[in-house]
Every structure is written in C-alpha cells, then in structure tokens.
C-alpha cells in the first residue's frame, strides 16, 4: 500500500502544469510539512518509478514527470511521405544527369527558363544531386552532379547507361508533340478508309 501523502504528492506533480518545488507542494497540501519532509517523499516516488516508462526528475529544485530520454524515438515517429517529382524538377535532374557537372546558370541556359532555388533543393533533399565544387569562372558558381543514390533510384549502373540523344529520338521522346499528334491522326484516317473499303 502506498501512503496517502505519497499518493497525493504524486498526483499533484502529475497534474501540475509546471514543475513544483518542495515548498509549493507543502503549501498545496496545507499541512504542517517541512519542505525537507516533502522532498523525502518525492524521492521515494522518484525511486518507485525508477526504470519504468515514466520518470520523476529534478530541475533546479523543481520536480516534474517526464518520459525517459532513451524512449524519445517512440514519441517521435517518422513516416514516409512519398511525393511525385514535379516536371520542372525532373527536367533539372535530367539536365544535371546529362551535362554534369553543371552550374545553375548552365541549367537555366539549357532549359531556357529560370530555375528556382527550391527545385535544386528538392533534388538535393532527395539526395539525387549534390554540389560538386565550383566552376573556375568569374563568380565561381557552384556546380552540381548526380549521386550514387540517383543511379540506384533510376536503376542505372552508371551515367553511361543513360540513353543518348539518338536513342531518345528513336524512342519518340524528342518528337514535338504536334507531329506525334498528326501521326496518330493519320493512322486513324487509314483505319477509317480501310473500314469503308
């Protein structure tokens, strides 16, 4: 059986919105207890919780309950939050991969549009690109290259595995959208004529 006074002090420390010192506890009990007596009881409570998932700790003479530091990882759970890479980021990543090492200015020249710092940040957060020193030109701009994590994610053994321009053309990836559209329409016409015949 736990002593009533001990229970009371324990409940008080538990429910308090700020750490309490021995004097505050004694005041709230309204008893003629000395802070020393209160402290002794608090130490009994702390000892009882020792090694459990709850600990009673002293900070500058004030006591409060907390969870042990070694269990902090349980209180902060990490969860994957998958996000689709934006079109702009995919373009920048591809440019870095095909032209590395490149500076931001060079990426912009190739893309033909301004590239926000955020786009590079996203790619660095994904650990697909990394800074690779500075270009020895006026302004010494930072240059970027792809990482091993990049190769791994896209299933490439090395950058040499990236298809060349001619491969891309052959795969239709360099076809303007409107030509590809006409071809598709031409095929449709053929089918229709065939059906009529």
């Amino acid at each position, binding site marked *: 059986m736990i002593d009533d006074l001990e229970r009371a002090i324990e*409940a008080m420390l*538990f*429910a*308090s*919105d*700020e750490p309490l010192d021995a004097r505050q506890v004694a005041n709230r009990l309204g008893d003629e207890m000395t802070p020393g007596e209160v402290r002794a009881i608090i130490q009994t409570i702390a000892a009882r919780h020792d090694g459990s998932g709850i600990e009673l700790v002293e900070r500058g003479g004030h006591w409060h*309950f*907390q*969870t042990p530091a070694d269990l902090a990882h349980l*209180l*902060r*759970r*990490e*969860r*994957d*939050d*998958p*996000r*689709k*890479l934006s*079109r702009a*980021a*995919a*373009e920048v*990543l*591809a*440019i870095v*991969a*095909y032209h590395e090492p490149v500076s931001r200015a060079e990426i912009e020249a*190739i*893309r*033909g549009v301004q590239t926000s710092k955020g786009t590079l940040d*996203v*790619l660095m*957060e*994904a650990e*697909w690109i990394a800074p690779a020193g500075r270009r020895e030109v006026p302004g010494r701009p930072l240059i970027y290259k792809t990482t091993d994590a990049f190769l791994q*994610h*896209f*299933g*490439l053994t090395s950058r040499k595995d*990236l*298809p060349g*321009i001619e491969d*891309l053309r052959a*795969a239709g*990836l*360099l*076809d*303007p959208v409107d*030509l590809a559209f*006409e071809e598709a329409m*031409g095929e449709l*016409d*053929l089918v229709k*004529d*065939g059906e009529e*015949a």
Partner: protein
Amino acid sequence: MDELPLDFELAPSAATEREDALQLSLDSWEGPLDLLLTLARGQKVDLRQISILQLVEQYLAFIAEMRAKLEVAADYLVMAAWLAYLKSALLLPKDPLEEPSPDELALRLQLRLQRLAAMREAAARLLARDRIGRDVFLRAKPEGLREVKLRRWDASLYDLLSAYGQVKLRTEPVVHMVSRRPVVTLDAALHHLERLIGVQLDWAELSDFLPSDYQGPLRRSAIASSFLAALELARQGRIDLKQDAAFEPLYLKAAKA
C-alpha cells in the same frame, strides 16, 4: 425553453425548493411534461402508484393560478386542455366503445412520466460521476506523440528521359521538317485517265479508273487529281461527263470522235 440558467449540477439540493418555485413562474420547467413530473413527485409515491386523476387536478389548478397572473405558453395550455378532457373521461361512466379508453390514455401518460423521470435521474447520476477536470485530472502538458513526415521523392526513369526530351525540343534550333505526303499528281492522273479512257466504251464511274492498290491518303489524293484530270479532258473535248445529281457518282466515257 432550453438553456435555463438553472445549474443542473446543483439540482438535487435545489429540488427541495421546488415547492416555493411552484409559486413563482413557469420558467423553471422544461415544458408541461416536466411540470407534471414535478407535481407527481409531490405525491411522494412511486410513479407506478401515482393517482393520475389527482395529478390532473394539480396541474389544472396550477395553470389556472398561473394564468391569473401572467401569460402561459401555448404548450402548457394544450396539455391543460388534454388533461381536462382526460379528467372528464375518467370521471364519467365508462363508454366501452370509446377508443382509446381513458384508462389507456392515463397509462400512456404514466409511462411517459416514468421514462422522463428515468432519464432525469440518469442525467443526475451521469453528472455526478468522476469527471475530468473536476474530479480527476490529466497531465497538464504531456510531451505528445508526434509524427514526423519524411518526404520521399519519387520519379521514374521515363519521367526523367521524357523531361529531357522536352528540354531538348524546347531549346534546339527549330527545324521545320514538312513530311512527305503520299500524293498522285495531276500529270500522273491525266496520263492514267487518258490511257484507260481509250479502252472504256461505256459510261463508267470515276472511281473505277483508280488503281485498286491506292489506299488511304493516296487514294483520296488520286480521287482529287483524277477528278481534276477528268475536268481537263472534258474541257479538251476528249471525254463526256455525266452526273445524275449533286454528290451522285460522276460517270465518264470517251467522247465520240
């Protein structure tokens, strides 16, 4: 009717003052059923033993007293009218044909009062339980369990390559490549038609003069150029043209020399 300032949590101690409250106003009641229940409690018997007739009289007397002093809300008056009817039915000799019988009406009223009383008591017992913030307390500032989202970016190799393709397209010097279309030229059609018209004696449809291996766009081009060729030959007086009506098949044959 709702949201009375009356503090229900103090209601048990206030209940003894109900007798005085009876003299004051109707605001203390949650409607006529509530007033009836309070009056029934005054009989100090189990609700199952209650005298409905006595209760009716109490209610009617109370409302009459109220009306002398102030305006009484309609629902209290409706109940009063109904109870007056019940009272007379209970007192008059029983008419066995009357449906429902006054006894049944009285029973229904009694059942309703029992149910309201049960819920009223349940509410009091509920509010008297150990409640958080009044009787039991939680940790004031728990650490809280947090969930940290780890952003994981996703893209496929296809996304990557097609993005590069679009970059290349956008920025490469634009070269217009007009694709070759399959066409039958007017000259070719003329030549073809001239050759065939010689062997054709009777009227024949224009489409009969087209080579059968022309398909798709090529065939459509052949129709167009053959039509022009036919017009040209007709102009030269070398063939005759015939069409029954607009959009009908066009017939042609060699002109009589």
